[in-house]
């Protein structure tokens, strides 16, 4: 796997300080959102915990001794939530799901795979979908379990799938 390509801003010390100028801050936030989503995608990070965020590699660059402070991280996460790329798990806004791709798009990709592999009208376990050998080449391979369920629920709403519970296992029938 190739290394994540850090954008030029990541080496720029002031990038880790929230800029006072309103227009520059908007540019800065654009860059932060882009960076966080790109990094999350590359490293398969589906969830973020605010309390642990300050030690996440994406919010700090030790080689230039800079780290985005907690209030800066909060601003970036709020911005991601505004853009639909982050969903808080509860009102305390301590934990959230990161979507570099929307839940609906994930659902569509999975359904496409189901069609391409003649799985319509058959049942799959969730394990098969995000961890099975047969999906090794797919983008959703390794997808966070909770996000996978959201994606399948989105398909359910669209009438394309039906989630099933087998006690220990969870599965889905593609329609």
């Amino acid at each position, binding site marked *: 796997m190739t290394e994540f390509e850090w954008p*030029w801003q990541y080496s*720029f*010390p*002031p990038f880790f*300080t929230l800029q006072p100028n*309103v227009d520059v801050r908007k*540019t800065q936030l654009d860059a932060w959102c882009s960076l966080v989503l790109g990094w999350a995608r590359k490293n398969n990070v589906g969830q973020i915990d605010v309390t642990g965020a300050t030690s996440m590699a994406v919010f700090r660059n030790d080689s230039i*001794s*800079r*780290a985005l402070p907690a209030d800066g991280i909060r601003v970036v996460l709020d911005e991601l939530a505004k853009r639909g790329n982050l969903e808080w798990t509860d009102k305390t806004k301590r934990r959230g799901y990161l979507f570099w791709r929307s839940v609906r798009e994930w659902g569509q990709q999975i359904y496409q795979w189901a069609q391409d592999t003649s799985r319509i009208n058959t049942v799959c376990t969730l394990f098969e979908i995000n961890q099975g050998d047969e999906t090794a080449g797919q983008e959703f391979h390794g997808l966070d379990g909770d996000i996978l369920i959201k994606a399948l629920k989105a398909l359910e709403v669209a009438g394309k799938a039906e989630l099933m519970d087998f006690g220990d296992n969870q599965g889905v029938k593609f329609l």
Partner: protein
Amino acid sequence: MFRVTAVSVLSDCRRKYVLVLTVPPPSFTMAVVLECFWCEMLGVGDFYYEVGVQVVELCVATSHRNGGVLSLDEVQRRLNARRRHDNQITSDDIVRAVKKLRVLGSGMEVMATGSSQFIYSIPGELSMDHTTLLQLAESKGSLTVAGTATNLGWTEERTNRAIQHLLQVGVTWRDDQSSPPSYWFPAFFYQCATAE
């Protein structure tokens, strides 16, 4: 987004135009006034005119990240990347093109600093204090208020005023995690100047 149609209108040049090139925040508006007589003087398709337009395009396209200041090296490199190998331009070509455009009130200016030069295209004029500060920044990379005041023989208040203006137009960014706080310039930051 910068309008490509602006370029083609400029090279048509049949009547007097006031061209307003606007870029979304950081807001940047530039007005270039073209007069018929100028076109007649230089002829449509004048080499420096074309280069000048490309420099304007580049300034506008990158102003969101450097606030409207570019090193001459970067301008030359980026323009030449788009040109055929047997059609490369020199930094002198660029300087002349900018100077010609300046005659038309383009608001673009070339500043020399020691052995290197930079181009700025910032709405409103830059005072001498601002450009002096930019020249210092270009050689040092980052500045502090105290260090700069000492270097230039200014009061801290005067230094601060100049820095605040450059902060306002997005040419400099503030770093609160250095002690004392420092100011950095995307235009003179290697990774920014060479980024895609």
